[in-house]
């Protein structure tokens, strides 16, 4: 092998230098280009919003939802390190409707927060059972009075996804078309689920149902379901008092199916069966599912619901 001759080396250096001068893009990226290439950092307060953001942003964003598995994100309180993560995000996607009770108690960059349900805040469902109080000059107020599981009304989920698309487009106007295209695919899937449930319910619209937890308000309103709720946990067998309350409730609301948030304890299923009440799992999927993703969990939920309306 011959060593490269010096004039040859200097010629290559000159060519490279000229390329650097006339084709700056080939040698270095300008600051703006670097910024544009950086991924958006998005933090969300629940899993459905993370899923929507990931679907819409695709590879253009890094979406984080740091709540530990098994925790209800609505009542979770992040530690200082996690709050710092939220503070450093380009976008913080909130569910609104008083979801994630920790939000008002921490310091987050005000105008990087996006309330995905702000567009339909006039349609939030107030929980009548919540006791309000008043004192001093502030007047009457309630500490917890808004139903927050908005995303299981799939038409509202689509609106939340639209807000995410809009927020992303404001951050990266150059990618608006990509975001819009991804959103339209997601919207189609959500509205297909919406249509499917409507069709399913239309077969037996007056069927009474009982829910293990009061989290199906938006779902019931959208699809015209007659749901009464108890306060049971799927992994705990209810006490005798709770069974008695259910029996009493079923007298006025003769439900044949109970909707559970998660897989119920076998003993609870058996005892319900003996009372003529079947068990269905409809997971609101507030936290990251163990298997699958939001859409697969929701499709399974819809499948699980079918026996109740046949």
């Amino acid at each position, binding site marked *: 092998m011959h060593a490269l001759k010096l004039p040859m080396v200097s010629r290559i250096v000159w060519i490279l230098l000229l390329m650097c001068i006339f084709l700056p893009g080939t040698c270095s990226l300008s600051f703006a280009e670097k910024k544009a290439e950086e991924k958006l950092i998005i933090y969300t307060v629940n899993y459905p919003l993370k899923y929507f953001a990931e679907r819409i942003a695709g590879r253009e964003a890094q979406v984080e939802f740091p709540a530990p598995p098994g925790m209800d994100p609505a009542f979770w309180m992040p530690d*200082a390190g996690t709050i*710092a993560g939220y503070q450093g995000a380009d976008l913080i996607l909130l569910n609104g409707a008083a979801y994630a009770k920790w939000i008002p108690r921490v*310091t987050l960059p005000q105008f990087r927060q996006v309330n995905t349900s702000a567009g339909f805040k006039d349609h939030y469902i107030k929980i009548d059972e919540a006791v309000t109080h008043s004192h001093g000059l502030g007047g009457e107020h309630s500490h917890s009075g808004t139903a927050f599981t908005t995303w299981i009304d799939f038409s509202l989920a689509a609106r939340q996804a639209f807000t995410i698309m809009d927020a992303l487009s404001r951050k990266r106007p150059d990618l608006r078309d990509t975001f819009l295209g991804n959103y339209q695919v997601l919207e189609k899937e959500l509205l297909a689920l919406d249509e499917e449930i409507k069709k399913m319910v239309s077969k037996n619209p007056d069927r009474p149902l009982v829910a293990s937890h009061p989290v199906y308000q938006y779902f019931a309103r959208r699809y015209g379901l007659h749901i009464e709720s108890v306060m049971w946990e799927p992994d705990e067998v209810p006490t005798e008092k709770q069974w008695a309350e259910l029996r009493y409730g079923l007298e006025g609301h003769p439900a044949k199916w109970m909707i559970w948030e998660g897989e119920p304890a076998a003993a609870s299923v058996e005892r319900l069966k003996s009372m003529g009440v079947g068990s269905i799992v409809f997971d609101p999927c507030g936290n990251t599912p163990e298997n699958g993703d939001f859409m697969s969990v929701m499709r399974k939920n819809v499948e699980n619901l079918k026996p109740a309306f046949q």
Partner: protein
Amino acid sequence: MIDSLYIAWKYLSFNKVKTATLIGCILLIAFLPIALELLLNESEEQLLSRAVSTPLVVGAKGSSLDLVMNTLYYGEEVPELITMEAAQQVAMSGLALPIPMYVRFRARGHPIVGTTLDYLDFRGLQVSKGQSLALLGDCIVGAAAAEALQLKPGDSLVSSPENLFDLAGVYPLKMKVVGILGKSHTSDDLAVFVDLKTAWIIQGLLHGHEDLSKAKDPQVILKQEEKNIVGSAKVYEYTEITEDNIESFHFHGDPGIYPITAVMVVPRDDKSETILRGRYLSKEESHQIVKPEEVIDTLLQNIFRIKNVLDAVISVVGLATVLALLLVFALSLRLRQREMQTIFRLGCRRMTIARLVAAEILIIVLFSAILCMGLVLVVNHYASDLVRMLFIR
């Protein structure tokens, strides 16, 4: 010449009072205009640099100077309050980033600045010790304030009551110092930064108390209705936010209409700035939008008009002092007539006598100049702190 200087020195050190008086007079005449110039230049620089770096400020219609001084330099004069709607309005326009500011309360003499994290990013303020704001009740303290109040992360700082005689008012809030900011050589060094929500807690708009539905003391409940519990004045509101009680803190009313003193507006570009400014021109508009640079420029023009008057006064006083000094020297020469005669009889020329007097004047002027230089150096060193203490605070 050395002999003349020696004799002059001996004479001056013998007449200490006279010498000190003469040095003092010359020193004052030289030092005052230089110090004034230095301080004015520094204040101009400080006022302008902060004003130039703040694109626009939205506030209630009224004194634009009060608005800018309160928003930029945390002046004690609080402008008329506006609501968070003003910030929302800017955000909704999509033309600029709004940074709400609530500069109303104080803690041990230092301004409490209620704002959002965007402010720290905008000003490039870095936490040098501890961490940034995270929870309600947290505060981060400017470098100079931390030094003055001897605060470090983990300490507490109590807000001062607005009015000493407001016995029925809101309790002071015990804030947790979570971080100390690095020196920025601006008004931020003297401030205490809190989240807007913490500022509203200080005002009592957001508060925490025991759950009235679980209250053990029947006296805390005034009236219990089906879905409403009316608390009595005995309801104890927490004065410190801890892990145990943070969940009880809640808003009363719509936070969207909570008060702030101003909105700092950072437009996306020049076009956005022009459009935004145009939106506040209507007579019906209850808010004003000001460019701090223009407001401070007007203020500085006034200051320089005052400076011209001061310069004239100093010039007249200076002239009078110089004349007085000449008189002192002339009288001194007359008093020293016999001394001069003796020197003359000893065989010295008239020129020697003139050299002696010149040496005395030279020594006096030299001493005055050295002292003046020393004082000027001191003022120059502390100019930025002095300006903040005397003019901007």
